[in-house]
C-alpha cells in the first residue's frame, strides 16, 4: 500500500484560513475534511449584555465582505422581538443596500477569485494580462456596488448607517440619482459577464443537494421569506431550530450545520436560484437559459453563472428601487425594547444567514445565536470534494489538487465568518 500526501500551505482566493485533508485508501476517498482552524471569534458571547442598539454595528464586524448581511439579519431579528415591522421606502432602502453588497461581493468572487480557475490562470493579475477588459469591467461592477454601500451605509466596509427601525439618515433622491447611471452601466456589464462565464469549461458533475433558501411570495429573496428546501421543507424562520442542528467536529472551529432528519444541505446562489427561479424577471430567466441553465442547476461549478445572474438581478432591482424612491418622512420607526426572543433570516451573498436574539426587558442581549452560510455549507463542501476527487484518483495529484481547490471556491466560502487559509493534504493508501 502506498501513501501519498499533497500539501498546499496557502490556498489563495478564499476568504479566511482553513485546510483540506483528503484520505484515499484502496482507490477510494475515505475522508474529505474541510478543516477550519481559524480561532473562534466568540461574537455570540461578546454580544451578551450589550444593548440592542449596538448590535448592528457589532455584528457588521463579523465580515468585511458581507457586513450588510449581518446588519440586516440582526435588525430584522430585533424588530421581530420588539413587534416592529419596517415597511415602505425604509424597507426598500434596506433592499437597495443589500443589492449593493450582492453586487460588490459577487463581482469580486466571480471575476477576481473564481474565473482564473476556469481559464487556467493562477490569479486575477495574470488573467488580467489576457482578459483586461473583463477585469476592468469587474472593478467597475464592484465600484457600483460599493457606491450603493457608501451612499446608503455611510461607508463601503462595515457600514454605520443601519439601525433597528431603519436608518440613522436616509438619502435624498438627488443623492441616489448618480447611482442610477452607474447601475445602468453595471447592468450591461452584468449581462456581458453572464455570457462570458457561461462559456467556461465546466467539469461534468451533478450533485443531489437538498437546497435551502428563503422564499418570498413576490420577490427574489433578500431580507424576508419562509425557509424552504428542495425536499418539501417549508417553515417559518422562527422554527429553524426544530429542523436544523449544529454539531462540533474535531477538524473545524466552525460548527457544522445539518438538517436533523436528512443531514447535509446547501445554501447560497445555487439554492436560491433553484428555489426561486420563478421569482426572477422573465428576461433574466431567458438569459439563464441562453447561458445553458435550466430552472435548477445541480452542477456546483456552474454556480459562477448563477452568481453572474444574481449580479444582474441586483443591478435591476436597485434601479427599480431608485426609480420608485420617495424619501420617507422618518429615517427610522420608533422602537420600544421589551423582553422576548426575535429571529432574523436573510440571504447573504454566500447563502442563508440566521440569527436569534433573547432579550431582557431593557433591550440588552441575554443570548445570541448566529448561523452563517459557510458553516451551513461545510458538510456539503466536504461531500463535493469526495464527489470531485473520486473520478480523478488515477490522475496526477496536481490535477486533483487543482480541482479540489476549484470545488471549494464554487461555494465562495467565507471562513472568517464561519469562525481563515486552506492547506490541502492528500493521503493515498
Amino acid at each position, binding site marked *: 500500500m502506498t501513501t501519498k500526501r499533497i500539501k498546499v500551505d496557502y490556498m489563495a482566493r478564499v476568504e479566511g484560513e482553513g485546510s483540506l485533508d483528503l484520505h484515499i485508501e484502496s482507490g477510494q476517498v475515505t475522508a474529505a475534511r474541510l478543516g477550519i482552524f481559524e480561532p473562534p471569534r466568540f461574537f455570540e458571547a461578546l454580544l451578551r449584555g450589550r444593548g440592542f442598539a449596538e448590535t448592528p454595528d457589532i455584528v457588521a464586524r463579523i465580515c468585511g465582505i458581507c457586513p450588510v448581511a449581518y446588519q440586516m439579519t440582526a435588525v430584522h431579528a430585533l424588530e421581530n422581538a420588539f413587534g416592529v415591522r419596517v415597511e415602505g421606502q425604509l424597507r426598500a432602502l434596506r433592499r437597495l443596500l443589500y443589492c449593493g453588497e450582492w453586487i460588490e461581493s459577487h463581482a469580486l468572487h466571480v471575476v477576481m477569485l473564481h474565473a482564473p480557475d476556469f481559464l487556467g490562470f493562477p490569479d486575477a*493579475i495574470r488573467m488580467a494580462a489576457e482578459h483586461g477588459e473583463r*477585469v476592468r469591467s469587474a472593478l467597475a461592477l464592484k465600484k457600483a456596488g460599493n457606491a450603493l454601500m457608501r451612499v446608503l451605509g455611510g461607508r463601503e*466596509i462595515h457600514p454605520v448607517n443601519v439601525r433597528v427601525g431603519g436608518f440613522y439618515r436616509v438619502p435624498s433622491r438627488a443623492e441616489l440619482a448618480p447611482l442610477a447611471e452607474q447601475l445602468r452601466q453595471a447592468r450591461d456589464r452584468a449581462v456581458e459577464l453572464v455570457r462570458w462565464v457561461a462559456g467556461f469549461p465546466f467539469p461534468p458533475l451533478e450533485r443531489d443537494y437538498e437546497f435551502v433558501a428563503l422564499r418570498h411570495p413576490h420577490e427574489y429573496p433578500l431580507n424576508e421569506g419562509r425557509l424552504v428546501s428542495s425536499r418539501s421543507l417549508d417553515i417559518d424562520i422562527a422554527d429553524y431550530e426544530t429542523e436544523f442542528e449544529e454539531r462540533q467536529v474535531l477538524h473545524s472551529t466552525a460548527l457544522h450545520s445539518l438538517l436533523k432528519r436528512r443531514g447535509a444541505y446547501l445554501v447560497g446562489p445555487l439554492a436560491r436560484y433553484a428555489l426561486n427561479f420563478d421569482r426572477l424577471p422573465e428576461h433574466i430567466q431567458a438569459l439563464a437559459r441562453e447561458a445553458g441553465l435550466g430552472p435548477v442547476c445541480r452542477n456546483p461549478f456552474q454556480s459562477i453563472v448563477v452568481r453572474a445572474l444574481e449580479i444582474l438581478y441586483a443591478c435591476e432591482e436597485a434601479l427599480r428601487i431608485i426609480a420608485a424612491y420617495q424619501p420617507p418622512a422618518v429615517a427610522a420607526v420608533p422602537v420600544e425594547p421589551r423582553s422576548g426572543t426575535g429571529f432574523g433570516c436573510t440571504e447573504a451573498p454566500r447563502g442563508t444567514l440566521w440569527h436569534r436574539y433573547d432579550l431582557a426587558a431593557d433591550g440588552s442581549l441575554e443570548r445570541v445565536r448566529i448561523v452563517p452560510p459557510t458553516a451551513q455549507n461545510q458538510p456539503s463542501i466536504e461531500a463535493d470534494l469526495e464527489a470531485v476527487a473520486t473520478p480523478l484518483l488515477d490522475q496526477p495529484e496536481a490535477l486533483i489538487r487543482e480541482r479540489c481547490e476549484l470545488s471549494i471556491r464554487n461555494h465562495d466560502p467565507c471562513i472568517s465568518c464561519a469562525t481563515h487559509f486552506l492547506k490541502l493534504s492528500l493521503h493515498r493508501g
Partner: protein
Amino acid sequence: MSGVDAAGRVLVIALGNPDRGDDGIGPAVAARLEGRLPPGVALLVRRGDLLGLIEDWAGVVALVCVDAAAPLGEPGRIRRLDLATDELTRELSLASSHGFGLAEAVELARVLGLAPPRIVVYAVEGCRFTGGTALSTAVAAAVAETAERILAEVGRLLRPTAGVAGP
C-alpha cells in the same frame, strides 16, 4: 521634463488599521500630514479592500503610499521604495489578511494600464500586529520622521525638475 503641477494629481494614501498594533502606522502618519500637504494634494486613509485602491488612482500622476512592513528585526525602520526601480515584495505589503494587498493592487493596476506613472512607497517595519493594541514604541517613534519624509517627497514631486511628466 516637467513636474507634477496640477491640483489633485498627487495622491498620498495611508494604509492600515489603527486597531492592529503597528498596522496603524499609515493612519498615524496621515494624522500628522493632515492640513500640511500642499494645496490640491489629496490624502486618503484606507484600512481594507485594497482592490478598491485602483479606483482612487484614476488620473493620478504620482502616488505616495505609507504602509506597515513585516518584521525583519528592525522595528521602526523606514524604507523608501520607488517602484520605478524597486520591487514591492509581499513582505513589504503585509498587514492585510485580504487577498489583495498593496503589491497585488499595484501589479493589477499596472497590468490594466491604470497605475500612476510614479509610485513611491514608505514602508515602516513593524513588530506587533495584535488586534486591539497601539503602535509599538519603536514604530510610534518613526511616525514623525515618516511624515516629514513624505512631505519632502511630495515637495520634490511637485517641483518642475521632479522628472515626472505631466499629462
